[in-house]
């Protein structure tokens, strides 16, 4: 296995640790310390992918987050698949398996490439808006083809075996980026004792120091960086996080840091001590101050065929040579607008490779690096640029011509220079993304030809991102920013000596983005701006010609910047080209808005552990284990798990429910009612308060009594109901619906705290404190009598009374309330005693036929009585009057209670509102569908006016027929009429409108 581009000395890779990997099915070798990209380049792989629109062969262009082409599918097994991995940011590990995302049958021989080549000129930006319209019926077929051709990698087909977690952190200073400025800032802040977090997206911290040729304080820059990192690591208040990307900056300095903990080791997280490690961790950081030290991205120049493999950004050349000991070619031509990029040529030369020419767009470059290049005998062509490259799967030559950047024209003859690598540099764009996430617009600076961050409260940019790009300046800016950050966070500056760097004199750069070609831009060979999305300079020009003049329109029409690299290489070039076409300046053209994420992160990392059982807490009653043991099926009600029914043997649900219903009506049944919301209300104004919140009167409820209450919003619509008991003159126990408990507590607090603070009243949720067991049925009294010291005689403990006493030897409150219409006692005991009491009831209950029943039976029994369930028989558009519950409305109460005024609005006064009624199907065996719509005619025509719908519907074993509750327009006037219920299968059911009370309408049974 040869690594033909690997240098035999230098770099930061560990040659003693070779690593095997496969790319597109072929085995290769790299070294520990490589990225997948550096390893591919070391092995001389030119074509790594095919572009998605034109299927052009593409190579590696950059060395970091800005790489547009080297996007791969990773993973050796199905569950471990990772789509769209950027090879420049993926550390090499032993056994890594990668494949290109596009190219069929493979990237080298791609059939679609022919289509791209032939058809490319007929696929300008937005071509799909202009075609595929006729005939209309063909669009779904076209779309199928388009979808197939689009997309990069593929989703795994199996469940992710990995776990992800979240850590909340607070710090005084968060430093984003551990290059020279970031390290200097972290050191300044750390030495003062502030809590500092320093994060960097790369495998190794140090940023540009790692490939720097310069000296700091008399030693090589990487060594200085290592020393600073060692000092920071020893500080107890400093946390350093490598492989950690600040991916999003949110309001009030909330920053999310995505730490890749195992992606450098394997495609799934390894186990350690038998436990699977966390693949990624998301740090949710609230920082007093953020130092933004994210540096810059180099801009490539936009020239014809600048996407042929072998074209790279200049800085990447230095990175590959100096960090990874890889020289990705033999013969280099550098096309530049600035001095800094000369490093690429000098490093190339230093690696023993040939620099054929440096092509400098400036007429008189004269900085120190220029002199150094000239001194080495390198040919420097001035006032010129590479205008085109030759070659298909690898550069074979560069076409160089003298150009006029301002006049945008070629001003002399074209020279063809043979080479295999073209490096280009059009300048450096500050990485402003995080500063833009909360809406700050970047600001253009002519002196650096780039946008710097707009002002963000609590954020201090430092170094390259702040336009201070030279090493000495970046270090000084870092110290200053760190010092400012810590003092703004309330610390005393500790004093950091400014690191000393020998000055490198650099000349001024020239503004050049798109390189002029001998042909006009629309006719020149493709000049790529955004390689991932195949957006060309001509495409941008065409967009502006067609009237897409806002940069946002240009972006959306061409697709520029929508890739996984989000246009890190191309955005500024695109703006410059749009500006040129529209004859305006770059700042006038404006920027598009950067949004999180800076680089993409997995859904898994964002979701963290909050899936499955942690998606939402599941609440269980104190009796849950008993229900499970007794075979209960459960229903989700809010967060609660409630027994739905308890099938015996092979019983169907219907059979079980009918049996449970009969048991209650004929013997005695028991329901775990613990999930009902319970709120203790105390204070001398508690009674007055209840009167204002409930629709009915509370002034005369005496101690020992219970009352049902309805609660409305101030729009008059029913929001909750429940029974409230008077425990003492100033003390009440309110129950709410299971799902509404939290909302009702908020509701009470809202009115008390914001509207009537003068009332003395206190609320406390006691839902979990009390377990509630409702025993219902003719035998309820006999059963309870065996276990309680409470006198159960009807005269002393009547319907709607409550008593304190003991049940099964433990203190209890017993409420004689009924949701079934039967003789009923609801026993409330401390939750810890619940199982004891429940089991004691069953111990005594056998002889009375004590039967556990679930929510379904409860529904049937309550519906037979016409009792509503808020949220099922109401939907937020139903008033107490609509429910026929005028008996529960205190029209004469002196205080205009919540909801009352709204009942007299024109629409709520209407007589033909939807009202609660009963429905009796003509076919007694029929159970109408809940949700069935109700119409007045048997003959169906579409559209058909609907007068209401079925809210609750069951078979009643007691009545011997199906029955339903429904909301029907003017329903109270329709008793006795026939209505129709058309079903999706074409059947039309018939039902009679009846009273919603089907059973024991006088209420005798509950009063015995």
């Amino acid at each position, binding site marked *: 296995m040869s690594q033909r581009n690997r240098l035999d000395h230098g770099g930061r890779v560990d040659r003693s640790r070779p690593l095997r990997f496969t790319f597109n099915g072929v085995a290769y070798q790299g070294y520990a310390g490589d990225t997948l990209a550096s390893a591919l380049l070391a092995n001389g792989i030119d074509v790594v992918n095919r572009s998605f629109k034109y299927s052009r062969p593409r190579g590696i262009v950059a060395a970091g987050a800005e790489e547009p082409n080297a996007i791969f599918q990773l993973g050796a097994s199905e569950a471990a698949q990772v789509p769209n991995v950027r090879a420049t940011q993926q550390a090499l590990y032993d056994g890594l398996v990668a494949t290109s995302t596009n190219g069929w049958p493979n990237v080298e021989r791609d059939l679609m490439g022919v289509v791209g080549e032939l058809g490319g000129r007929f696929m300008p930006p937005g071509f799909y808006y202009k075609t595929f319209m006729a005939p209309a019926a063909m669009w779904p077929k076209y779309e199928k083809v388009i979808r197939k051709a689009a997309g990069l990698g593929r989703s795994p087909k199996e469940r992710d075996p990995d776990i992800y977690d979240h850590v909340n952190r607070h710090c005084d200073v968060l430093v984003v980026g551990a290059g020279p400025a970031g390290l200097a800032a972290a050191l300044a802040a750390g030495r003062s004792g502030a809590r500092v977090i320093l994060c960097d997206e790369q495998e190794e911290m140090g940023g540009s120091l790692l490939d720097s040729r310069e000296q700091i304080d008399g030693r090589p820059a990487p060594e200085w960086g290592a020393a600073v990192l060692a000092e920071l690591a020893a500080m107890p208040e400093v946390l350093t996080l490598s492989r950690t990307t600040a991916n999003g900056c*949110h*309001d*009030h*300095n*909330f920053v999310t840091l995505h730490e890749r903990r195992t992606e450098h080791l394997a495609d799934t997280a390894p186990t350690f001590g038998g436990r699977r490690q966390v693949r990624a961790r998301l740090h949710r950081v*609230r920082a007093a101050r953020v130092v933004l030290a994210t540096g810059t991205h180099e801009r490539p120049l936009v020239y014809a065929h600048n996407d042929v493999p072998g074209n790279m950004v200049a800085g990447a050349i230095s990175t590959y040579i100096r960090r990874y000991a890889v020289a990705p070619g033999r013969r280099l031509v550098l096309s530049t607008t600035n001095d800094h990029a000369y490093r690429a040529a000098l490093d190339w030369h230093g690696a023993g490779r040939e620099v054929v020419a440096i092509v400098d767009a400036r007429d008189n470059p004269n900085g120190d690096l220029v002199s150094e290049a000239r001194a080495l005998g390198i040919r420097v062509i001035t006032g010129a640029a590479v205008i085109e490259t030759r070659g298909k799967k690898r550069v074979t030559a560069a076409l160089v011509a003298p150009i006029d950047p301002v006049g945008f024209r070629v001003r002399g003859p074209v020279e063809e220079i043979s080479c295999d690598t073209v490096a280009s540099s059009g300048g450096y764009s500050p990485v402003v993304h995080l500063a833009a996430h*909360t*809406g700050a617009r970047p600001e253009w600076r002519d002196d650096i030809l780039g946008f710097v961050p707009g002002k963000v*409260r609590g954020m201090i940019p430092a170094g390259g991102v702040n336009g201070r790009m030279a090493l000495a300046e970046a270090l000084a800016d870092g110290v200053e920013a760190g010092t400012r950050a810590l003092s703004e966070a309330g610390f005393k500056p500790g004093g950091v000596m400014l690191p000393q760097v020998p000055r490198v004199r650099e000349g001024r750069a020239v503004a050049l983005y798109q390189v002029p070609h001998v042909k006009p831009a629309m006719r020149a060979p493709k000049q790529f701006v955004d390689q991932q999305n195949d957006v060309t300079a001509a495409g941008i020009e065409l967009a502006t010609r067609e009237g897409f003049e806002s940069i946002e329109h240009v972006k959306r029409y061409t697709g520029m910047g929508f890739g996984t690299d989000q246009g890190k290489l191309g955005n500024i070039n695109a703006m410059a080209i749009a500006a040129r076409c529209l004859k305006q300046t770059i700042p006038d053209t404006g920027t598009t808005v950067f949004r999180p994420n800076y680089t993409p992160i997995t859904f898994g990392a964002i979701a963290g552990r909050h899936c499955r059982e942690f998606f939402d807490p599941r609440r269980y009653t104190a009796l849950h284990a008993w229900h499970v043991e007794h075979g209960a099926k459960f229903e989700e009600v809010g967060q609660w798990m409630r027994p739905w029914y308890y099938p015996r043997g092979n019983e169907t649900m219907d059979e079980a429910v009918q049996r449970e219903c009969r048991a209650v009506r004929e013997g005695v049944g028991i329901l775990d009612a613990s999930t009902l919301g319970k709120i203790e209300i105390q204070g001398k104004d508690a009674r007055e308060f209840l009167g204002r919140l409930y629709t009915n009167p509370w002034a005369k409820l005496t101690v020992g009594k219970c009352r049902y209450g309805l609660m409305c919003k*101030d*729009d008059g619509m029913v929001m909750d109901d429940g029974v409230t008991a008077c425990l003492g003159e100033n003390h009440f126990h309110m129950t709410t619906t299971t799902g509404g408990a939290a909302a009702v507590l*908020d509701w009470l*607090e*809202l009115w008390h*705290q*914001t*509207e009537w*603070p003068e009332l003395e009243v206190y609320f406390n949720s006691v839902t979990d404190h009390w377990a509630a067991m409702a025993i219902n049925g003719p035998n309820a009294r006999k059963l309870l009598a065996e276990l309680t010291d409470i006198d159960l005689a009807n005269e002393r403990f009547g319907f709607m009374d409550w008593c304190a006493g003991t049940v099964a030897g433990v203190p209890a409150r017993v409420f004689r309330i009924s949701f079934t219409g039967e003789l009923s006692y609801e026993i409330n005991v401390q939750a810890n005693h619940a199982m004891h009491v429940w089991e004691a009831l069953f111990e005594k209950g056998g002889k009375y036929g004590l039967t556990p029943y679930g929510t379904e039976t409860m529904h049937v029994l309550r519906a037979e009585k016409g009792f509503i369930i808020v949220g099922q028989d109401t939907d937020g558009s139903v008033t107490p009057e609509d429910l026929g519950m005028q008996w529960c409305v205190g029209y004469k109460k002196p205080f*205009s209670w919540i909801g*009352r*005024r*709204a009942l*007299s*609005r*024109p629409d709520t006064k209407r007589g033909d509102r939807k009202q609660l009624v009963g429905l009796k199907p003509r076919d007694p065996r029929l159970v109408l569908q809940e949700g069935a719509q109700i119409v007045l005619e048997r003959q169906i025509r579409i559209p058909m006016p609907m007068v209401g719908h079925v809210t609750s519907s069951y078979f009643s074993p007691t009545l011997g027929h199906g029955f339903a509750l429904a909301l029907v327009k003017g329903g109270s006037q329709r008793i006795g009429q026939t209505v129709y219920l058309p079903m999706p299968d074409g059947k039309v059911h018939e039902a009679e409108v009846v009273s919603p009370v089907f059973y024991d309408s006088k209420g005798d049974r509950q009063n015995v």
Partner: protein
Amino acid sequence: MLHIYCPHCEEYREEEEFRPKGEAHIARPKAPEETDDAAWGDYLFFRKNPRGVHHEQWLHAAGCRKFFNVTRHTVSYEILETYKVGQQPTARTTDKGGAK
């Protein structure tokens, strides 16, 4: 994610502890039965909804369970002050479209 100072707890806490409860300082009419339909509808549903400085109610739901008021800019999301129910804000409501 907003960082909110609870005037009851006297600490900054994460937005996740709080629940927004809409525009502040909407008083329920003292005599609802004498309030006409239009005024009642206005009280129920109509809101200032400014693009600018907004006074709003928040509930420290996972904290002290107290309602309090926040003066917040609805574009920058900057919180200018928080204050207890019954107190008056120092910053006035502003609205980009308010000039007439």
